[in-house]
């Protein structure tokens, strides 16, 4: 499984990408989609919603389970991926391309508290035990 260096990660298996315009894009990692299996439903947060770090803000539902997605950092929702409503399987096909929502961060520096690629790799290894 590839863990790109240009992304940040959370312990709850979200990936986060800082865009050039200061907005961050959030999705779930390939590891998370593999654990969940075939996606059947995705619920994304409303645009304009203000999120605190760690707040439940989206739901991904597979044939096995429904899982909450948490806000990786505090911020305001600026966009939600419209494709996932009709094609939740896109997360299974390419979890890094199938982003869930975008946030305007309260403080971009909060990203520094997240895991980098090496840290996330370590987390996955520790969960293997």
């Amino acid at each position, binding site marked *: 499984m590839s863990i790109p260096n240009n992304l940040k990660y959370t312990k709850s298996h979200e990936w986060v990408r800082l865009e050039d315009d200061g907005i961050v894009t959030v999705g779930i990692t390939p590891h998370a989609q593999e*654990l969940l299996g*075939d996606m*059947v*439903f995705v619920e994304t947060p409303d645009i304009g919603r203000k999120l605190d770090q760690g707040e439940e803000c989206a739901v991904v539902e597979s*044939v*096995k*389970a*429904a899982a909450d997605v948490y806000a990786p950092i505090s911020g305001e929702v600026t966009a939600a991926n419209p494709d996932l409503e009709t094609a*939740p*399987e896109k997360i299974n096909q390419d979890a890094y391309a199938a982003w869930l929502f975008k946030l305007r961060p309260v403080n971009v520096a909060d990203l520094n508290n997240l895991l980098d690629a090496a840290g996330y790799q370590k987390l996955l290894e520790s969960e293997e035990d």
Partner: protein
Amino acid sequence: MLIFEHSRPGRRNYSQSPATAAETGNIPQNLLRKRPPLLPEVSEMDAVRHYTRLSQKNFSIDTQFYPLGSCTMKYNPRACNSLAMLPPFLARHPRAPESTGQGFLACMYELQEILKDVTGMAGVSLTPMAGAQGELIGIAMIRAYHESRGDAARTEIIVPDAAHGTNPATAVMCGYKVVEISTDKEGDVDMEALKAAVGPQTAGLMLTNPSTLGVFEKNVAEMSRVVHQAGGLLYYDGANLNAILGKVKPGDMGFDVIHINLHKTFSTPHGGGGPGSAPVGVGKRLLPFMPVPVVAFEKGAYRWLAEKDIPQSIGRLSAHMGNAGVLLRAYVYVRLLGEEGMHRVAEFATLNANYLMAELSKAGFEIAYPTRRASHEFIVTLKDLKEKTGVTAMNVAKRLLDKGYHAPTTYFPLLVPECLLIEPAETESKETLDAFVASMKEILEEAHTQPEMVKGAPHTTPVRRLDDVKAARELDLVWKQT
């Protein structure tokens, strides 16, 4: 094939016996329907054959072992059904005067008393009409208790991460914020996490014990002390009551409120969408808030207690008094068992589970919590098998169908990867359990020698593997005439 597809215009179930048209009497013309309803038009024989064939295709506890146990399909003694169907019970009107329903009220009163005794609670209300409603009402009573004391600061309900998903859902429905706490390596609630989570904001803790991991929470007394000391109350989810029936009382463990899924433990229908029933038991602190009606026995007669008798009651949950027919089945069951029988249910449910766990372990299956004694159920994890052979828990479950067994619960609890949650229940014989172990052993060998065959299972059932992903994505439940 659906019954609608057997339909032929004009075919009637009375085709061989001349019948007169139904009398519409003096119903006004404008209220009579112009066209017959769109019901399937079949003969009686067609209908009998159709439904008999469907029942033959179905897995059922009447023909096969269900290792889903009390979770889903515990065997219900036939007597419970036949006695609850006695004509006077069926003919009883829910609004008939109490004086003409004393026999029925006596059954309900005794059921309340027996459930109080077996759970160690101070009061029981039979009125919740399903497990979800029982849970909702339990937490609503906790809320009413805190509000009655003017304690508005309590906004959080603590739920272990191993809990059934209904627990956090219930807390949210009652307006609470859910605080999730983790599980330790032994399968118990992490006590440090609990201690860190409680405080003046804690309204209560929801706990299933034995837990969904199939182990008895060793620290339940300490948990109870910690939560009570912080001013919170304890809610007992009765999902796994079968394991401790008559042996340990939730009231003695310190719980303030409990809901009991009658279908899980007390021989009432399940798996067909109901009707459900989930009596709630309460400790002394919550007695004033019980939902009405509740049956009382006063001056030699039974009567319903209503709002005027329990003025702080959180109210009514149904037009009458819950699902009477379901409660009667539970009543017959608890009277059939008696105290001794209840002990035997718990003893044999746990004995069967521990025997099966030991035998499957010997057969090469990995037990998720090997150091713990099973309650009435236990978890096998197939993580290693998947890594070595590609065969998943779902594949093993499907292959079990070929061997004549219903599949156990798969992929729950979520904490254990590639898991099967196995619960034999108290009614299965050693021969059945041994045959199940032999089949599981065969599947384990097949996973190594013919993994593709196992991945393609089931092979012998009336329908092969269903496309549950497509079914979930494109839900289509309505038949349309073409």
